[in-house]
């Protein structure tokens, strides 16, 4: 479904990605794990079109989407939940969802999407008129996920959805990720919380300083001694 080949990105003199290749099959949950600064967010932002690559290619459903503008990529069915949630704090919960559904054709589709979001996250329905910045961190993460689901993406990119959340909420977020996957959405998950990510994912790639250093089935990687030492705190 998504094929990334030999992707290189630099921010001025800083080389963030050096020839990264990986793929995501339809229906899979694929995890990208790595330390802070490894280049995980850069990968997602390049797929989404807000960072321009130096070289390499990104293919989605058999078509090349490298260097397309972000709104075209969303329209094709690839949507991202950015790192740090990034809800529009001054806008209401409802308006945030409307922005998530910006590419939808009509008001009816939008209304149906919002109803679906409220059914999935009843808490958001209660707070629909509140400014998003008044929500707690966990609620904001739910809103960010609900917002991304508004466009009914076929590929969902999640950037550290568990960041800064209490353990109970982290579990809830991973349950939601599993549920989204069961509904047929393909997921590319970026995490520093490697144990949770490897528990929910089918396959995973380990990233170090802009390069893929390990890859394989999630269960195998979770048993790999190097991974256990570096990312699972052993």
């Amino acid at each position, binding site marked *: 479904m998504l094929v990334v080949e030999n992707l290189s990105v630099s921010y001025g003199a800083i080389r963030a990605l050096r020839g990264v290749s990986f793929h995501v099959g339809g229906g899979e949950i694929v995890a990208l794990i790595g330390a802070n600064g490894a280049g995980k967010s850069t990968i997602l932002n390049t797929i*989404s079109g807000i960072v321009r690559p130096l070289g390499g290619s990104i293919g989605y459903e058999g078509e090349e989407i490298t260097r397309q503008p972000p*709104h075209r990529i969303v329209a094709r069915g690839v949507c991202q939940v950015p790192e740090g949630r990034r809800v529009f704090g001054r*806008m209401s919960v409802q308006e945030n969802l409307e*922005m998530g559904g910006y590419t939808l054709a009509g008001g009816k589709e939008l209304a149906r999407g919002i109803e679906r979001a409220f059914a999935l996250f009843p808490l958001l329905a209660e707070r629909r008129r509140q400014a998003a910045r008044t929500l707690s961190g966990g609620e904001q993460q739910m809103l960010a996920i609900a917002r991304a689901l508004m466009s009914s993406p076929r590929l969902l990119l999640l950037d550290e959805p568990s960041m800064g959340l209490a353990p109970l909420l982290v579990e809830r977020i991973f349950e939601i990720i599993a549920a989204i996957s069961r509904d047929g959405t393909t997921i590319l998950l970026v995490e520093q919380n490697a144990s949770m990510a490897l528990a929910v994912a089918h396959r995973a790639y380990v990233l170090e300083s802009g390069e893929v250093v390990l890859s394989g089935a999630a269960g195998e990687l979770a048993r790999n001694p190097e991974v256990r030492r570096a990312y699972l705190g052993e």
Partner: protein
Amino acid sequence: MRLQYYASRDKQQRFFTDFRQSGADSMFLQQLINGIALGSTYALIALGYTMVYGIITLINFAHGEIFMAGAFVGLLLVGVFKLNVFLAMGCAMLFCMALGVVIEFVAYRPLRRSSRLSALISAIGVSIFLSSLALMIFGANAKAFPEQAFPVQQIRIGNADISTLQILIIAVSAALMVTLEFIVQKTRIGKAMRATSEDYNTAALMGINVNRVISFTFALGSALAAAGGVLVGLLFNAVSFNMGLMAGLKAFAAAVLGGIGSIPGAMLGGLVLGVTEVFGVALGYSSYRDAIAFAILVLVLLVRPTGLLGEKMQNKV
């Protein structure tokens, strides 16, 4: 170049001193209305600065010249083509919408990924280009609207004399600002403007075509400036190639005073500047007229660095 505000000193003096001849009790109301009328025109221009800054953090230095262009288009349509004032204003707004969009496309968009300084220099270049072009086409002398363009009558309310022109200015400005508020709060593109101004990258990640939002923002701001240009041209009965310079500076001061990036802030900032300026002149500080606006700006920023209604600066990544 001589720094002139709204071109004709004569007309201004008459506008500002008329009301000093009446009694002290009527003076307050009179000056207040005067100030609101002047402040409304500042607010109309200030909105363009604040909306553009809110989205791409660029001070559009050419905005004052868009205001000037609007005044000239209005003047031409009324003077040469004998169009009714309202129609002329509508056409001036349409013309400037296109002008604003073209300026953004040609002078700012190619520099989007360059430093802010290059975009600023480009903006100053456009500003000089437009005022020189107007000088070439229309000459250095201020031009006036024909007498019959808008019949001015004095209406007595309580102790105050209000001219129909002031009523026109206040009513048109109010109507435009209410329309703007509706667009920004309720429409799809207006919400996209707010989202983009809050977080540019995330707006793009939601599928919002941010380039289109930016064009739309320039169109809106330029339309308001054009309306301001026609109204100011009528108010002082003078339109000149350099009228955008001081008007632009003061409107920019109004935008900063209200909190740059904030739409209600620009409205409030414009009114506050207009009213203080008129009262300052009435109290006998007419030689400091242009300085008053900037003095207020400095005072307010000392107390509230983000302006009257500005929010804390967010770190745009």
